[in-house]
């Protein structure tokens, strides 16, 4: 895969009318692990059960080249983080051909197609999910697809055949699927309709709207209904040591997700965004209670076991972290972001809050942008009451400092 990507980039940049752009970035991260939660408990029982990335440096490069109908995007990363071996990765994020025929636009290859109107949650991003609330912007990875699009002045149709080859073991949207988006502009209002037919998850429907209500206020909303959806669930109801993880991906029926959001921007370049969403794919309050009871039960079992057997209890506790893998941690979520655009500086403060248990993730960041250089620094903190899900995530704090050079 990577040699072919490098070959594609070389061919593209060798072309007379090719364009190559990109970014090189060096970053330092200082992390501290949470003392609560199943991973902390697992590592306390037996150190190294669930190795976690610690502090350290990351170097990454993003390269994008295009020539005529061909576009390629490649990302390279090297990391040296405490607790993990040095790691180098390279990924072909996009490689596709695009063209026009009979008034339609076509694309074929690996490509990022991202939809929906939300910032912190996007239920209708049904072709390839863009990452949400990243500390630093990262080039997202596209999926293999064939795409046909039609644009008139105010309407757009987009039909995507994603993962054209059947995939029996694919989960969380990485299955073969047909996805359709219809867009209609009505003055200050943008309307979107979505439909998706997945090989395993079958039909789902969605709708979204964005409306500019005044010079400073924008409102947006998104809704999705799925007849079947895939989520992580624990198939074991009682605390007992098991030889394999009880967490499995299950297809559950009739789920809804909905988001409401608003943003305000003042003449002084201060902006405030607020979003609230319901995610039917998240575990219910009762399921989280069962999860917490199971964690307590496993810790109680571990305390009775002789030292040589505590590794098994630690492993069982570590598997409980798979509960964090669904699209949202809690069904009810609130997100607020305050930012100021002041000349070359952009300070921002954001909060993700889960009202069901009082969990919160707070991020403070500061960016400076020059002609080619950009400096980013920030701090993210995971907290809330000890019983909240967010307080039991593996990390407690993360501070970062990054320097990027664009060309």
């Amino acid at each position, binding site marked *: 895969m990577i040699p072919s990507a490098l070959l594609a980039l070389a061919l593209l940049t060798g072309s007379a009318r090719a364009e190559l752009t990109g970014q090189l970035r060096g970053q330092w991260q200082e992390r501290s692990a949470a003392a609560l939660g199943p991973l902390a408990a697992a590592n306390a029982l037996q150190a190294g059960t669930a190795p976690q990335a610690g502090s350290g440096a990351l170097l990454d490069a993003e390269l994008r080249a295009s020539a005529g109908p061909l576009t390629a995007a490649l990302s390279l990363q090297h990391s040296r983080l405490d607790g993990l071996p040095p790691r180098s990765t390279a990924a072909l994020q996009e490689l596709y051909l695009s063209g026009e025929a009979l008034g339609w636009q076509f694309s074929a290859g690996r490509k990022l197609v991202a939809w929906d109107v939300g910032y912190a949650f996007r239920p209708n991003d049904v072709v390839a999910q863009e990452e949400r609330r990243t500390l630093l912007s990262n080039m997202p990875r596209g999926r293999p697809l064939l795409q046909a699009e039609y*644009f008139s002045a105010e309407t757009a149709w987009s039909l995507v055949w994603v993962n054209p080859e059947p995939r029996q073991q694919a989960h969380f949207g990485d299955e073969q699927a047909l996805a359709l988006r219809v867009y209609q502009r009505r003055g200050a209002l943008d309307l979107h309709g979505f439909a998706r037919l997945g090989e395993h998850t079958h039909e789902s429907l969605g709708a979204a709207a*964005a409306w500019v209500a005044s*010079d400073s206020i924008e409102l947006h909303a998104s809704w999705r209904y799925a007849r079947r959806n895939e989520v992580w669930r624990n198939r074991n109801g009682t605390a007992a040591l098991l030889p394999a993880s009880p967490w499995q991906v299950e297809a559950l029926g009739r789920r809804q997700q909905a988001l409401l959001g608003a943003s305000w921007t003042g003449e002084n370049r201060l902006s405030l965004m607020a979003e609230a969403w319901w995610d039917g794919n998240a575990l219910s309050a009762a399921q989280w209670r069962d999860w917490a009871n199971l964690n307590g039960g496993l810790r109680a079992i571990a305390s009775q076991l002789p030292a040589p057997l505590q590794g098994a209890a630690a492993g069982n506790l570590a598997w409980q972290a798979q509960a964090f893998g669904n699209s949202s941690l809690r069904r009810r979520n609130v997100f607020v972001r305050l930012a100021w655009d002041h000349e070359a500086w952009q300070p921002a403060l954001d909060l993700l809050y889960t009202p069901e248990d009082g969990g919160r993730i707070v991020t403070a960041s500061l960016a400076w942008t020059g002609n*080619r250089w950009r400096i980013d620094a920030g701090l993210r903190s995971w907290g809330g009451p000890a019983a909240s899900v967010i307080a039991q995530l593996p990390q407690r704090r993360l501070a970062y400092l990054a320097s990027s050079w664009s060309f």
Partner: protein
Amino acid sequence: MKIKTIVLLTLALGLGTAQAADVAALLRDADRYRAGADQQQIDTQVEVLNADGSIEKERRYTVLSQPGHRSLVLMQSPAEKGQKVLMLGDDFWLLMPGSQRPMRITPTQKLLGDASTGDIATLSWAEDYEGELLGEERCGEAACLHLSLKARRKSVSYQRIELWVGKQRHEPLRAELYVQSEKLAKQASFVLDKAQSMVLEMALQDALSNKKLTHVRYLARKPRQVPEAWFNPMFLARSPSLE
């Protein structure tokens, strides 16, 4: 007495209409020095200078401008490459680099960052403002006309512009740009090319906060008609070729 009143009113109305027509023609003349053709591609360079004259920031834009208040601004500088702003009348969208999602933005959000430069580059005084001729003044050595312009649309960056144009050829000489709150935001001056036919550069002195000076240089203008689809907000996720 009644007849006299009617005659005077008719004369006043006629004079008012004539003055409005004169102002519209003056503004069309002044626009031609900055904009050129109705359908065109403009390459623009923006330099922001610190108080000591050093360059704080340099940005390049390509602006595709079509009739009906439609403009597509493509950011060309390394720090912003891939960023696009689409302006359709009072409606605006932004596409950030690395994303494939065009986002609806408010007129105030459009002013964030350097995208407002695109607006400055493409606004049409004749179409976006109604004006009043305040009289003849001296602009340095030459005689000039002082016009007071009021925005027809709320979404333009400046709600009031005081504009001075040459008396003979109506070329723009200088302007004072006021935001919604009636504060003076910028003072603009215009430099013409050697042939004295087009504006080569616009200098904007920030009057609101930082006293910085911005130079907007028009590097190239060429007539260009682009497909209707390029002005569909969802088309922003595709990359139009500028060749």
